[in-house]
């Protein structure tokens, strides 16, 4: 086999000459030993470093004969089959296997690598020795992070705000929409439309408008009329000033005392005398005595309660006569059903809502003992607990019937009334009828007088007899306030852990019905204090009072009405 060995010789700067040699042999041996086909006087070459076999048709087999291997085409290898053009590097020598010329079977070009190139190759093969030479960087991850976060955190949600289609698409994808901006959990009541940010946040970069609130909260009462009261806070306050959402389930209603006290601490001065309300800033130490609503009637009999400051000796006038002490006897009362001991709950039962007590009802609470019978001959008959006319009417009807029927066993009655009619008896004569009805009218009047003045009505009611002013019996109106403190919302339900006597202790010893058994502020202050009270229930204004309380103004119609 004929090998062409072409040596490249550099002469001067840009001049190159070739020296060609022919080597006869099956393979081309390379090494530092003198018997090698290609002799490399380089300490980096082994004596018998490698051999190259021509496989024909331009293919060569390169094999390393030492444990260190050989660098072919830049890679260390032990044996490899390569085509023409492959480059073998040993020390400072570069061997290029080339296509065999016509008169040879194989060919190799041998060239020296000059020092500059060697250094370059070494530098090229050097592994990075600092992180700045590796693939990681600071600039490109910074850009990627910056752009990604800005795109997904800001631009995409903004787009979804302005383009509803994008919003719909995003809501069906895991990509962030404006929901990713939610600063905190919504109030429980707002969650049913919570996915739609624009329900409240209608305009970008503008605080939530009141109209967004009143579109649902249409009938919410205003607080006071800013046109009447010269307080800037009243006119400028937005719903959102107090109601800040995204603060969790119960974050929406602020119970902060300052919401009220900021204005009410010096309201008179603030409104330049327009407000008549006493300055209030704290329930514990800056709240006036309660004003209690006492029952009262106008001249024409209309119920017009009077609001008076609570005092210890204050009397009320409900029109009723009632002795609590007599009814609450510890050893009980004689009743038709035997002995019974009454308690508060025997008569005072809470309304379904639990706030106030049900009105006292004669039929269910009094009648068991206080029966309205009027005739000892018919003890089961009673007049209704109704107005005077109905009572009188019942009596008239009853005695008219008894008179005409006869058989009324009262010796004082006329014979015709006493006489029992038998079947087949002749009808009463005109004379007899007049006599019987005259008796009936008198008897009914007597029974009425007995009822009204004797044993029944007058027990509890003030009764005036018929006279020049009134043609009939007159019962004074009876009514308790029902709600004694109208400006506050007290509820018995929240005070169930207390005993009745804890607040209404006077009831146990009260003999007169005009004893005011409703406690004043001192009673409340035993347990309740202001916002910063120590050792007491911290009760801010909102605990008892409403902010949205105007009787005429609502928020949606505008406080400017």
């Amino acid at each position, binding site marked *: 086999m004929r090998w062409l060995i072409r040596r490249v010789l550099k002469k001067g700067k840009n001049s190159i000459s070739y020296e060609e040699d022919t080597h006869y042999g099956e393979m081309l041996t390379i090494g530092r030993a003198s018997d090698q086909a290609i002799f490399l006087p380089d*300490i980096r070459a*082994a*004596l*018998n470093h490698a051999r190259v076999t021509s496989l024909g048709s331009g293919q060569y087999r390169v094999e390393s004969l*030492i*444990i*260190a*291997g050989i660098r072919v085409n830049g890679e*260390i290898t032990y044996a490899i089959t390569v085509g023409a053009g492959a480059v073998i590097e040993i020390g400072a020598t570069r061997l290029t296997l080339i296509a065999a010329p016509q008169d040879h079977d194989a060919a190799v070009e041998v060239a020296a690598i000059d020092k500059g190139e060697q250094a370059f190759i070494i530098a090229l093969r*050097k*592994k*990075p*020795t*600092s*992180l*700045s030479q*590796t*693939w*990681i*960087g*600071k600039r490109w*991850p*910074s*850009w990627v*992070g*910056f*752009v*990604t*976060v*800005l795109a997904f*955190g*800001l631009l995409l*949600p*903004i787009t979804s*705000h302005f383009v509803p289609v994008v919003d719909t698409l995003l809501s069906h994808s895991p990509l*962030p929409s*404006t929901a*990713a*901006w*939610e*600063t*905190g*959990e919504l109030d429980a009541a707002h969650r049913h439309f919570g996915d739609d*940010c624009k329900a409240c*946040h209608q305009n*970008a*970069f*503008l*605080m*939530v408008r009141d109209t967004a609130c009143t579109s649902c909260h249409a009938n919410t009462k205003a607080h006071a009329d800013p046109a009447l009261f010269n307080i800037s806070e009243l006119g400028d306050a937005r719903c959102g000033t107090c109601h*800040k959402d*995204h*603060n*969790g389930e119960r*974050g929406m209603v*602020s*119970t*902060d005392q*300052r*919401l009220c006290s900021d204005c009410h601490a010096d309201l008179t001065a603030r409104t330049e005398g327009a407000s008549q309300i006493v300055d209030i800033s704290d329930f514990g130490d800056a709240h006036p005595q309660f004003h209690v609503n006492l029952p009262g009637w106008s001249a024409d009999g209309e119920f017009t309660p009077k609001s008076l400051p609570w005092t210890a000796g204050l009397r009320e006038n409900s029109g009723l006569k009632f002795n609590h002490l007599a009814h609450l006897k510890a050893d009980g009362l004689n009743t038709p059903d035997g002995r019974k001991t009454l308690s508060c709950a025997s008569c005072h039962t809470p309304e379904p809502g639990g706030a106030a007590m049900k009105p006292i009802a004669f039929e269910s609470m009094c009648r068991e003992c206080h029966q309205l019978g009027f005739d000892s001959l018919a003890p089961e008959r009673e007049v209704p607990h109704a107005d005077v006319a109905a009572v009188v009417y019942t009596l008239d009807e009853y005695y008219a019937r008894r008179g005409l029927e006869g058989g009324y066993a009262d010796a004082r009655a006329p014979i015709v009334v006493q006489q029992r009619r038998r079947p087949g008896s002749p009808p009463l004569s005109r004379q007899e009828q007049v006599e019987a009805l005259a008796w009936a009218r008198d008897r009914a009047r007597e029974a009425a007088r007995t009822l009204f003045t004797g044993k029944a009505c007058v027990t509890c009611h003030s009764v005036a007899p018929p006279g020049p002013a009134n043609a009939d019996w007159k019962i004074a109106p009876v009514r308790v306030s029902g709600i004694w403190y109208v400006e506050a919302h007290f509820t018995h339900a929240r005070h169930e852990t207390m005993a009745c006597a804890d607040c209404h202790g006077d009831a146990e010893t009260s003999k007169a019905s005009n004893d005011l058994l409703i406690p004043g502020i001192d009673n409340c202050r035993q347990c309740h204090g202001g916002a910063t009270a120590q050792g007491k229930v911290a009760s801010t204004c909102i605990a008892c009072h409403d902010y949205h309380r105007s009787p005429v103004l609502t928020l949606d119609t505008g406080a400017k009405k």
Partner: protein
Amino acid sequence: MHESILTHARSRYLWVSLALCAISLALYVWHDPGMTPNGGTWLGYTLGTVAAALIVWLMLFGIRKRSYSTTLGSTRGWLSAHIYLGTALILIALLHSGFQFGWNLHTFALVLMLAVIFSGFFGVYAYLRYPTLMTRNRENATRDAMLDEIGEIDQNALALADGIAPEIHGVVLRSIENTKLGGGVWTQLRARDGSDIAIARIRAALQQRSNTQIGAKPVALQAGQTIVAMVDFLAGHADDKQSEAMRKLIDMLSRKRALATRVARDIQYQAVMEIWLYLHVPLSVTLLAALIGHIVSVFFYW
């Protein structure tokens, strides 16, 4: 006493940061917003403004440390302030949030901020610990000097090995090829020099050989082929002169190995001192985007 970045100017910025934290905490405790503490109260806005300003200022450090001509404080002073005020930022940002967290952009920004700060903590640790280790490891040489020495040893070892036997020459050649200092990120951080790690073990092998019977088979070692080859050679047909040269060669290679290890460790120390910045810097720029998103979105839906 040497003044470190932490004790710069009598720890001036430590006290500044502590004061900032104390004021913020006192305000937070004193402030009663009348609802859950949150970023939307006046104190929330105030703390948020302070925190945002701090973040921007902390990021300016990246510019400041490159502007060599500025006279606005020393870079070390800036770094000291950067560290302490950056740490104070944790508390200020948490107080700003009112400890309200959620799956949202805002908490994401907070998490990014914490990631930046904690990566910075590692940087402080690295800056305090590694320069000393680095100096000690180099033993007054430079990395280039060590690399030059390795190159010299390679040449001498080849010449020496050539005088012993062609196989040994081949083994040394391979060892040279295998010595690759540096590499990818992971390689740099792990301090693997890639040189024939078994060279040191050859002493043990030789020791063992002299302890066991002459002619006994060499102990099967788990080392690389270099040892096997060398020990085989010694066990088989080495004469005294060759043995002497072998020992010399082994000493030479051991020295090289020690040098290579030291260079690898030098690269490792440098890499550890730098690696955190590859998190710290991109995360802080990402944080800037999240911060912009946070501020804009909060006022977008005011």
